[in-house]
């Protein structure tokens, strides 16, 4: 997995080899603001799915510190019971600079988990709220988790989260304001143009193990909806398109700066811009020219 995560030599060959070897495991993304209870929810869902005898992959993403490049990946703590279950594979990923809530190579790791034999892969995002949009692309079903405390998030529900949610969860549903939140979501949804899939709103109390079955059912329903031939092809093409763009971008940029000489060129360009010799945009164009001059940057 590290091979693939680091985009090391041999990674893509491996991915090519395993692609399609097994039917891809459906991916369920779990996103939402910090403190919503995503981790607990993922842990509870995992327990439920294990009781049903399914093999499970879990990818838990946490933010990389922009200053130090390091990260604390603490999501396994909530899933300790599953740590010795051979039917569960949990992998923690740091964003490593990615801004959309996922790590750059999350999708690739999902492929590996499919190859391992996962029946379902849960992807838990960083949870910054507004910028959690990558997950919609990587996952087949996106679950947005909110709590009565994220009440002001209804304002931020105008864009972003509202649009990517296939399912809404109102967690900590025993707290005051849960009903109002659900109502708020419902009315915001009502303002949208009618669509073939109307995101259900599931109330849960993750710490009390309540609502988990309902959530699972909602996910199953969504999967069935996706399987519907009329629906699926268009959607899947969209997603594949987005994934291709991602994969290309990753591989284009990867290692580019470390390539011999480019790092130094970047430094020189920065100096030039600093001293006002050229505009940053000119510098950028020059660098791109140099990059493409250096030949194929497609990996191995």
């Amino acid at each position, binding site marked *: 997995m590290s091979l693939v995560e680091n985009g090391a030599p041999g990674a893509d060959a491996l991915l090519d080899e395993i692609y399609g070897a097994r039917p891809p495991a459906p991916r369920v993304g779990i996103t939402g603001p910090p403190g919503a209870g995503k981790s607990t929810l993922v842990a509870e869902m995992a327990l439920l799915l294990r009781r049903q005898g399914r093999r499970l992959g879990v990818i838990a993403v946490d933010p990389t510190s922009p200053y130090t490049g390091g990260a604390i990946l603490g999501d396994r703590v*909530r899933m*300790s019971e599953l740590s010795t279950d051979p039917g569960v594979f949990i992998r923690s990923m740091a964003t490593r600079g990615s801004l959309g809530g996922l790590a750059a190579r999350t999708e690739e790791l999902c492929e590996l988990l499919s190859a391992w034999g996962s029946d379902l892969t849960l992807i838990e995002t960083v949870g910054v709220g507004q910028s959690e949009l990558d997950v919609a692309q990587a996952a087949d079903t996106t679950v947005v988790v909110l709590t009565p405390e994220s009440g002001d998030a209804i304002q931020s529900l105008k864009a972003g989260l509202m649009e990517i949610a296939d399912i809404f969860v109102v967690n900590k549903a025993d707290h005051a304001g849960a009903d109002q939140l659900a109502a708020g979501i419902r009315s915001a949804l009502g303002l949208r143009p009618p669509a073939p899939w109307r995101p259900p709103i599931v109330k849960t109390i993750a710490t009390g193990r309540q609502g988990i079955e309902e959530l699972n059912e909602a996910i199953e329903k969504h999967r069935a909806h996706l399987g519907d031939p009329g629906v699926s092809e268009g959607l899947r093409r969209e997603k594949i398109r987005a994934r291709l763009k991602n994969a290309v971008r990753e591989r284009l940029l990867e290692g580019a700066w470390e390539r011999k000489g480019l790092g130094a060129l970047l430094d020189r360009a920065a100096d030039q811009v600093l001293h006002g010799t050229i505009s940053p945009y000119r510098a950028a164009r020059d660098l791109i020219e140099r990059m493409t001059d250096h030949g194929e940057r497609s990996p191995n």
Partner: protein
Amino acid sequence: MANAARTDTAATRAEPESGRAEAAPKPHAPETAEAPVPLFETLSGIPVRPLYTPEDVKPGLEERLGKPGQFPFTRGLHPEMYRTRIWTMRQFAGFGTAEHTNQRFHYLLAQGMTGLSTAFDMPTLMGYDADHAMALGEVGREGVAISSLEDMEILFRGIPLDQVTTSMTINAPAIVLLAMYVAIAEKQGIPPKKLGGTVQADMLKEFIAQKEWICPPRPSVKICVDMIEWCAEHMPRWNSISISGYHIREAGATAVQELAFTIADGIGYVEECLKRGMDVDAFAQRLSFFWDVHNDFFEEIAKFRAGRRIWAKLMRDRFQAKNPRSWMLRTHAQTAGVSLTAQQPLNNVARVAIQALAAVLGGTQSLHTNSMDETLALPTEEAATVALRTQQIIAHETGVANVVDPFGGSYFLEALTDRMEEEAMEYLRRIDGMGGIIQAVEQGFPQKEIADSAYRFQMQVEEGRRIIVGVNRFGGEEEVSIPVLKIDPEIERRQIERVRAVRARRDAARWERAMGDLRDACMSDKNLVPFVLDAVRAYATLGEISDVFREAYGVYREPAVF
């Protein structure tokens, strides 16, 4: 870091403006290379001036101080404090099997210790019997192994329970240990109302700091309240809870945070008791506290004083307690384990002595002094004796026990006491705003504050701004060999045998009945103490009873808070 180049003499320290010790001049050395800026602040980060004058004390001091023995108890709980009775010297002890600890008890009592204090091993603390898989390698290591009533009988053999007071440092399965204590007293013919002592049983601080839990916060707190309620009715001499700041501090909190979070916990328990319909004066007198005593001498004294004042005001004004005894914050104190160093362990004797002095000047009701070798292992008899003697020397040779609150009126101390009260009250307001301490704990608020303080402290140490003698300054390569207590691995084997024998020997029908009743009671909101009592009398083991709780209430998994 070329610290060796720095001359740390009194002359260089006295530099007025620079505040930095001069480094030996080095050509082309970057300015920031040498001396780190010293910290003129308390361990909580409260800045301290070179000199305090009357202007530094806000008006109205007389009212804020009061007299010792009177609201708001700033100066002490009793008019004459130690002149009437020296604080209880209560040294924590416990290791190995019940026999070993019983021996240590008898030894310490003979040496003049005036109260018993029991340490339990990790499996016991976590609600596991010695033969549980999770107990592997841990039986009898950190304290005494107690799996059944039989162990308890051995632990207190030959000790007249109506003549000693016993403190039991146990939390998650505290209800079991309390029941066992009552049951063995019964066997000695002593009714519960004659028993004096304390059971720690403060689960809120477990979720904040010590992390020895079984069930999630709400059911855990419910069980604590059961104990408070039952003891209020049946054990008037017993402190049913020791609301602890010690562990919160050891986990990395500052003195202000220790003060604030502990009192917040206290507020939490009082509120839960009141919700149950108890009358505040019926239980408040038996709520006791437990402070850490750390190195910052004056800050610790101020903390004790501020704590008494805050609590008195809360009990009288917020909770409307009528009985002045309900307003009194009675406390045990322990010198800070976390301040001891493994390097140059003999230095720890000095640290403990100074910390103990602060606790006495702060007006503690009882005190445990750490042994110097505790960073390496459980204390040897010799080291434990020195720790006890330290208290005795303070009590009988220094004269500080002859005057109540001798530092009272010091401009510095009063300013610091006021400041700590303000900062603690600020935290209490925030916690109230979150809906109370249970909510705050569920949201990880105190845990995060503590993790931040711990990290900040460590970075200060590593930058050399906080000096720890023998560790980042004045270190030596000498390896001092201190005899270290080794736990015989045989102990685990013997304890496993014993608990299995107890299970085999007991009256199965009686046990069955008692466990069934307990299980049913857990599903209701009945007070669990009588049911646990029946279970321990039937020789149900600690692990079995804890498993009933696990089944009924679930097992807690904490969020990773950084």
